[in-house]
């Protein structure tokens, strides 16, 4: 089983064309005398990141009252972690760009993933989690393993879909029946090979079984709940036709009141369009200062 897993994930680049920008950014961050302007200078070298950053920074996703005009301003109010997450998310979208329409409706797949990211972030904010922004990336990447399957094992992916469509079953059950493991295990293996932080890896790895996540129960529960909500809203498609079961213990672990759900659903509806535009469409001309 592990040989197949390794075969699936070996050689998938983590950052694609964004690797250089990320490395330069880290170099500036590690320098003791670096300033926001220095960070802005590095980011502005990449017009794609600049445009995405300003677009997202000026959207309802953040809801800032004043228009952000420069990259340094955007970094100042959004935070460097969010900028790194933006690059990370853009890079993952880029790495898996080549998946054909015969394999999956990628627009719908990303819509589901982005909506899950928005939902996880909103739930984390409602739960007053520190660094709630990181949950956007966790939600975005929760079905990463399916992309690996589509791109690295398309024949097995077709076999899985055939089995799945032949009876009433969940897609991940069909994955286990054919492969011996599911998409969450694939994502976990890939993200570990990319040396992603443990909280992110575990939030994704256990999003179907959050109570098995040990010290990361809360992180994985938030992604689990966001995935459930977005499936229920039928916002985009991950390939799964059913709204999977809700883990009641995960809901209790998160400890929110049901009255919060309405505003979470509304936020997903309000933010999905701008987030889709930011990550999935070629950005417009960058603003340089």
């Amino acid at each position, binding site marked *: 089983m592990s040989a197949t897993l390794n075969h699936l994930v070996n050689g998938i680049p983590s950052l694609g064309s964004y690797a250089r920008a990320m490395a330069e950014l880290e170099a500036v961050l590690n320098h003791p005398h670096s300033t926001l302007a220095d960070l802005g200078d590095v980011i502005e070298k990449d017009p794609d990141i600049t445009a995405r950053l300003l677009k997202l920074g000026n959207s309802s996703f953040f809801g800032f009252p004043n228009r952000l005009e420069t990259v340094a301003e955007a970094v100042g109010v959004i935070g460097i972690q969010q900028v790194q997450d933006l690059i990370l998310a853009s890079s993952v979208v880029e790495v898996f760009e080549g998946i054909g329409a015969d394999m999956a409706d990628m627009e719908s797949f990303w819509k589901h993933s982005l909506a899950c990211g928005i939902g996880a972030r909103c739930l984390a904010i409602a739960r007053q989690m520190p660094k709630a922004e990181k949950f956007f990336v966790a939600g975005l990447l929760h079905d990463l393993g399916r992309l690996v399957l589509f791109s690295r094992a398309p024949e097995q992916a077709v076999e899985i879909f055939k089995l799945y469509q032949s009876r009433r079953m969940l897609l991940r059950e069909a994955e286990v029946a054919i492969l011996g493991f599911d998409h969450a295990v694939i994502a976990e293996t890939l993200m570990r090979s990319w040396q992603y932080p443990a909280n992110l890896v575990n939030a994704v790895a256990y999003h179907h079984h959050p109570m098995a996540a040990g010290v990361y129960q809360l992180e994985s529960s938030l992604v689990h709940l966001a995935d459930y909500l977005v499936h229920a809203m039928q916002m985009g498609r991950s390939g799964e036709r*059913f*709204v999977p079961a809700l883990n009641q213990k995960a809901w209790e672990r998160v400890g929110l009141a049901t*009255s919060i759900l309405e505003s979470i659903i509304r936020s997903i*509806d309000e933010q999905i369009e701008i987030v889709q535009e930011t990550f999935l469409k070629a950005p417009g001309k960058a603003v340089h200062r």
Partner: protein
Amino acid sequence: MPYVKLESLQEGMIVTVDVRNLDNMLLIPAGCALTDRQVNILNAWGIAEIQVEACGDSEGLADPVQQLPPETLEPLRRDLEAAFWEPVDTSPVQQEVFNLVLRRRAKQVLEKQPPKP
């Protein structure tokens, strides 16, 4: 009594059910005529909607599920129920999510309908 979203609440609306925060602290008692300050309090606590007395101009405020005729609503409800892997009444939170999503769908259907002459 209809649930009314925060952005649609107006001063003077009569609250029909006690509004409490997550710690069960009473924020607004039932029977109270809503003030702007109370709406700000609801906003601060992240409360998305409350129950108020139906008023004359209730069409824009009423639950969209109640506005759909049964012949439109029932297929919508059945389709949505069939999409869930587990029965939707398995737990209160699943029931709440189902109701919210059904309401969202009903609203989408209403928005697609041509305006009344």
